[in-house]
């Protein structure tokens, strides 16, 4: 239920109170801007609520590596300042054949060039990091100890709290229904709780982004579709049993790690959609069990407590659309994160805040150009997990 009044007007309105909207509000408010977030349920209730915790810099292109390098700096900074946990327990990609090793050598070279200290390690070294691993088929692993994990819900709450401290308004249980536009200029938004006047709007609704674009009358094709991805959690086990995020492309594009509560959490590549349905499926339970137990045999004897589903808001090249939409004055988009938006959020907040307040940013935002789809300039597929 709504606890805060909808302000009559706000300089900037962010639609969507997930990690992207909240970190952006935090960044803008910290810079002294007047900003309001409008969230249809509660802060962090969408895909952020269902997300798998991982923070990685191991991407395969220059832009994403640079953005994630910056993002990790910000995660480190804000986790210390705001007192939520960011455990730099690393990301471990298990590799099983020469082609995979060659590909990861190329990725590692790009990562190293921008100061991300990823190394190719031996199966034995991988087993030292995660003693429960079955390395009988592993021939090498890509290892970056500075990657890590953050609880999505606690961190979103921490950013929300501090955004408010800097003067941002976070209005929950309020749904945007339409735009008020006059002569190509945004004048305000209609919501189920009345109108808010504003001139600058950011669409940070990820899986719902196309709905907001349609309300804004945007003609530019920005193909973002919701896909159902699922996750599993096991009974809690002794803490520290699986420290890093472990990835295996061979076994179903699986990712798994241990939560701060002790359960083993993760998912596989199994994808359904486009759909807004979120019912977990039996087929997922089967697949995730099969793949996980091949990566870590001890999981065979652990109980599955629960499965759930969330959206990946996917674009054709698995990169988000971040930038200014020229056809409507002062309309911005930061959506379509394709399964890795949580980890990017602090850097995306910085980029979008730069665009709004200075018109430019030193981070390579053009990689995420919303017009690339229209121009047919898809990027290389961003390394999507799960």
């Amino acid at each position: 239920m709504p606890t805060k009044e909808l302000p009559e007007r706000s300089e900037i309105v962010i639609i969507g109170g997930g990690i992207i909207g909240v970190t952006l509000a935090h960044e803008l408010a910290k810079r002294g801007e007047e900003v309001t977030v409008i969230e249809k349920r509660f802060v962090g209730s969408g895909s952020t609520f269902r997300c798998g915790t991982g923070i990685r810099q191991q991407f395969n292109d220059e832009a994403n590596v640079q953005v994630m390098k910056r993002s990790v700096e910000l995660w480190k900074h804000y986790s210390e300042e705001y007192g939520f946990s960011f455990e730099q327990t690393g990301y471990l990609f298990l590799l099983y054949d020469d082609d995979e090793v060659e590909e990861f050598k190329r990725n590692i070279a790009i990562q190293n060039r921008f100061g991300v200290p990823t190394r190719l390690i031996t199966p034995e070294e991988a087993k030292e990091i995660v003693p429960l691993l079955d390395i009988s088929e592993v021939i090498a692993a890509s290892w970056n100890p500075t990657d890590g994990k953050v609880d999505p819900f606690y961190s979103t709450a921490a950013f929300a709290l501090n955004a408010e401290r800097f003067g941002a308004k976070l209005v929950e249980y309020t749904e945007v229904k339409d735009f008020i536009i006059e002569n190509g200029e945004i004048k305000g938004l209609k919501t189920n709780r009345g109108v808010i006047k504003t001139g600058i709007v950011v669409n940070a609704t990820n899986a719902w982004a196309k709905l907001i674009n349609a309300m804004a009358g945007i003609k530019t094709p920005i193909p973002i579709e919701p896909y159902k991805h699922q996750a599993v959690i096991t009974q809690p086990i002794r803490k520290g049993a699986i420290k890093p995020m472990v990835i295996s492309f061979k076994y179903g594009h699986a990712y798994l790690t241990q939560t701060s509560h002790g359960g083993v959490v993760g998912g596989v590549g199994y994808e359904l959609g486009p759909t807004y349905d979120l019912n977990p499926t039996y087929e997922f339970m089967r697949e995730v069990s099969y793949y996980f137990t091949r990566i870590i045999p001890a999981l065979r004897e652990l109980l599955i407590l629960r499965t759930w589903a969330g959206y990946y808001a996917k674009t054709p090249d698995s990169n988000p659309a971040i930038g200014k939409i020229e056809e409507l004055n002062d309309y911005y988009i930061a959506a379509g994160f394709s399964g890795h938006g949580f980890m990017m959020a602090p850097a995306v907040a910085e980029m979008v805040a730069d665009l709004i307040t200075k018109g430019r940013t030193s981070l390579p935002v053009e990689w995420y150009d919303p017009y690339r789809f229209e121009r047919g300039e898809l990027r290389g597929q961003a390394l999507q997990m799960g």
Partner: protein
Amino acid sequence: MRPLDLTEKDPSKRITIHFEGKPLEAYEGEKLTVALLANGIYWLTTSTEGRKRGAFTFGPVPMVVNGVKNINGRKTVVKDGIRIERQNYGDFQETVEVDESKPVTRQVVDVAVIGAGPAGIGAALELQEHLTVALIEERGWLGGDMWLKGLPQEGFDGEPKEVIKSLVAQFNDNVRVFRKTIALGIFDKGEYFLVPIVKGDQLIELMARRVVLAVGAVDNILLFENNDIPGVFRRDFALEVMNVWGVAPGKKVAVVGGRPEDIVPELERWGIEYIVVPNPKRVEGTEKVEKLIDMNGNVYEVDAVIVSDGRRPDINPITQAGGKLRFKRGYYMPVLDSQHRIRDGIYVAGSAVSIKPHYANYLEGRLVGAYILGEFGYEAQPCVYEKKLREYEPEAITIHKIEFDAFSLEDVQICGCDVSLKKVDDVVRSGITDLQIIKRLTHLAMGFCQGRFCLFNGAVVVSQRANLDMAKIDLPVARPPLKNVKMKVTAAGG
């Protein structure tokens, strides 16, 4: 006889088991937890935060059996020479034998009936004349909660076990009975419902054209200090040890909760000394219950406490299967259409619908069976059952006012996974009333029981602290698996 045996056991089945190195007397076929109780051993495991726990209230019972960690004590049957040790919740078996599991099998039936209490048995009996039925029961016996009773039940003639036996004896070849079998969920495949079930470590995919949820009700968990310690019994577990296994919960027990009448006659039947304490505040003891203190400061020396506070429908299978809930008579119940369906093809019967006598639940099982027969074009007389069922007004269950000021809140456990009433209350008092958020912040309803025994109390805390109507509280939906399953079982066969 062992210290807590109520009956003489068959001497030809006598075996020796070892607990923490000590040899003990047990009997073939006994559950591990019951064999230990008969020997006066209550404390079996230790929670993540170091709380001692027994087997007869909420929370899991992981134990070390013959050197293998993380074995469910409740589901293990004793064998001669077995070695049992305590462990902490987080201990697990790091090296496992790579045994290839049994291949998954498929079976096709007309109707999958989940739960073999009086309602499930009634449904199967009604359906069997024309349709094939899979009757799925998690426990080792048929008859559900009625099997636990020793005294005659309204509507039926004779001793409950004899009634159940005579009903079950009427099953024909169309009924396939799966005992000690869990259902993982109900998945709509259009032409049929997929109901994956697990018997032992065997995964079976049932393909059923209709589903009956006769999943029963769960006992309420009463909130008082140290309500999780060894020696605290839920009503159903207390009845089970006495009436199924012939073992007493203790030499002298206290009965707490709003429904002492559901257990007291059974204690009297066995001649177990008891005292009814309407307002418990705290139990104490080093390894198990030694005394109970009430709100007035009276101290009772007892060695067990039985919580009998009524039951509420198990709503998890309802919401997982796509059903909606409403709040009425003090509990959440499924929203049904005129034919007892939560949606096309999925029926609900028994105490999963509402709380009423066993005989009424049995009638309701017959009723949904008759509806299904009618749907398949067979002659059926649902109106006969409808009429009889109308004679039973469902019971109302009292919601207690939680004595927040009287309790030391961190000692009151709301959930078996180390979630204290204090953790939940602190979050609610900070202004958060959405159970989804409360779940995330406290871990309420995220453990082994998937909220069965704690979500309701979570809603009560929200309702009483934030002054919200229970009917307006949105309960999180259950997710598969409906019951915990080992990953190797669902991994089987690729």
